[in-house]
């Protein structure tokens, strides 16, 4: 007879698994009432710390070669594949969806990692341009990351929505702070463990946990957050981000999506979080 060790699911901030500074946790139960564990409840100050971590990691992440970022994204897929059954079981317990459905979701997630991993070192050639200019100059336009992105995770899925929001954002060198869906904090925290074993540098993806609603206004107003990703969000949530995010002209991605479709991925998801830098260069005689 031994006592089961019930896991406390931590926040993932700056590459570390931490409890909330507030000390609050939320009890999580499966649909049939079984106790699954405690999820740490991210507070306003945890959000502040997470944005700080994302900001300080951004230059280093953007400075890696696109090829290297692609390898790291691919590795996220590898780690997810290796732990797919364990992951699916947690999702099954937390969401109540069948184990089969959950396994399917993890598989789709792995495929999505491979898709976005492939884009990292091709993006510049595909959307960068050599511009026709009237003079002895070259004119280049190249994509650069927007900066720090706030991700309000898709509320309708445990993993695939959040992952489909995170991957295009980080593929180009952005860093992000994720507010997980209220119903799936354990899956989100577990995804942090995948990231921490995938060579993703600390601070590139920061995952809070708990309840989105009290954090929304602080994320929307944060002057050091450059863009927001929403997916299948309530209309009033989107309104909040649009109006409060205007102060520093945040880019906002929103809309409805069925992320389980095998082709629910696209180059345009990446383009929503890049800025175009144009350079003039004299032609040498």
């Amino acid at each position: 007879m031994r006592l089961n060790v019930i896991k406390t699911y931590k926040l993932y901030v700056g590459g570390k698994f931490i409890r909330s500074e507030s000390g609050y946790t939320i009890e999580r139960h499966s649909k049939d009432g079984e106790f699954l564990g405690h999820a740490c409840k991210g507070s306003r100050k945890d959000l502040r710390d997470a944005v700080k971590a994302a900001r300080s990691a951004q230059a280093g992440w953007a400075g890696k070669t696109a090829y290297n970022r692609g390898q790291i994204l691919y590795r996220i897929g590898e780690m997810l594949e290796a732990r797919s059954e364990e992951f699916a079981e947690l999702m099954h317990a937390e969401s109540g969806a069948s184990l089969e459905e959950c396994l399917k979701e993890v598989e789709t997630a792995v495929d999505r990692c491979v898709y976005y991993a492939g884009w990292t070192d091709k993006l510049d050639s595909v959307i960068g341009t050599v511009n026709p200019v009237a003079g002895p100059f070259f004119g280049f336009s190249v994509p650069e990351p927007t900066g720090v992105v706030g991700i309000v995770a898709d509320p309708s899925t445990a993993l695939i929505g959040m992952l489909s929001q995170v991957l295009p954002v980080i593929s180009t060198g952005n860093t992000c702070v994720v507010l997980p869906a209220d119903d799936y904090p354990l899956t989100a925290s577990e995804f942090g463990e995948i990231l921490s074993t995938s060579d993703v540098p600390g601070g590139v993806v920061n995952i809070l946990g708990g309840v989105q609603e009290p954090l929304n206004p602080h994320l929307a107003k944060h002057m050091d957050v450059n863009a927001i990703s929403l997916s299948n969000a309530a209309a009033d949530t989107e309104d909040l981000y649009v109006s409060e995010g205007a102060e520093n002209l945040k880019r906002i991605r929103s809309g409805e999506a069925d992320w389980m479709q095998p082709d629910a991925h696209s180059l345009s998801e990446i383009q929503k979080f890049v800025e175009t830098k144009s350079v003039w260069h004299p032609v040498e005689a």
Partner: protein
Amino acid sequence: MSSLSLASLLSPGAFDRPVDQVGANERAAKFTKRSIKTEAKHQGLLMAISMIDLTTLEGKDSPGKVRQLCTKGIQPDPEDLSLPHVGAICVYPSMVRTAASALEGSGVNVASVATAFPSGQLALSERLKEVEQAVSDGADEIDMVINRGAFLSGRYQEVFEEIVEVKKACGPAHLKVILETGELESYDNVRRASHIGMMAGADFIKTSTGKVSPAATMPVTLVMLEAIREHYLETGRKIGMKPAGGIRTSKQALHYLVMVKETLGDDWLTPDLFRIGASSLLNDILMQLAKQRTGAYQSADYFSND
């Protein structure tokens, strides 16, 4: 050379009473546990601004950079005109004229490092010339470094006499004596050096140049504050304190203010007796104040990069 003897000035105890290192560390850590919120925090941050010696000590300093810093020192945040000005702008001697003309009539002092800052490794005559030049160019305050080589060799009388000479060369300017605690090895030495500096005529004692790590720490500052108290109780003279280097956040600044208040009392909570040598601290405070004013967390993108 001065005919004064250090030994005759120091009371017994100032040299041979050891500092309790563990006690100092623990006491200093306690000052970081006070809860200072909203209105008290606001007042504390305003006070901290008025005590900043806004510093630029880089090889790449230019007159333009110094003028920009002076403008910022006078009016820290163009979006909030109610903020106080900083205590002083601290520059290299070659920039004193530029700073003095930019700060004229503003109430912000010009502080200049001198005496072959940061190492102090020049002949005394050269160091004195540098001080005189800085003062005649318009410096209100001189930040000198002590002769650490002499100090660590036990030539305390020499260290003392050099400070006395520098103080003379300062004329009307205030003298801050930098101990460079990161090179002094022990709290006992910090305490000894503090007493030598104060006995030799320092108006302020200062922890560090900012060029040596560790720079200012809370326990070291506490040891120096205790020495200032001993000096005050013996002589009745109030000496100022300036921690410098490594104080970058609003929270740290508030910790230091708490330590000064709880060690020396309200009398020392004025820019005349307490300064913080810093460069990036000011922006952090401005961002905190903007957060309080607007409710939104701030970004360094919107504050001047200096």
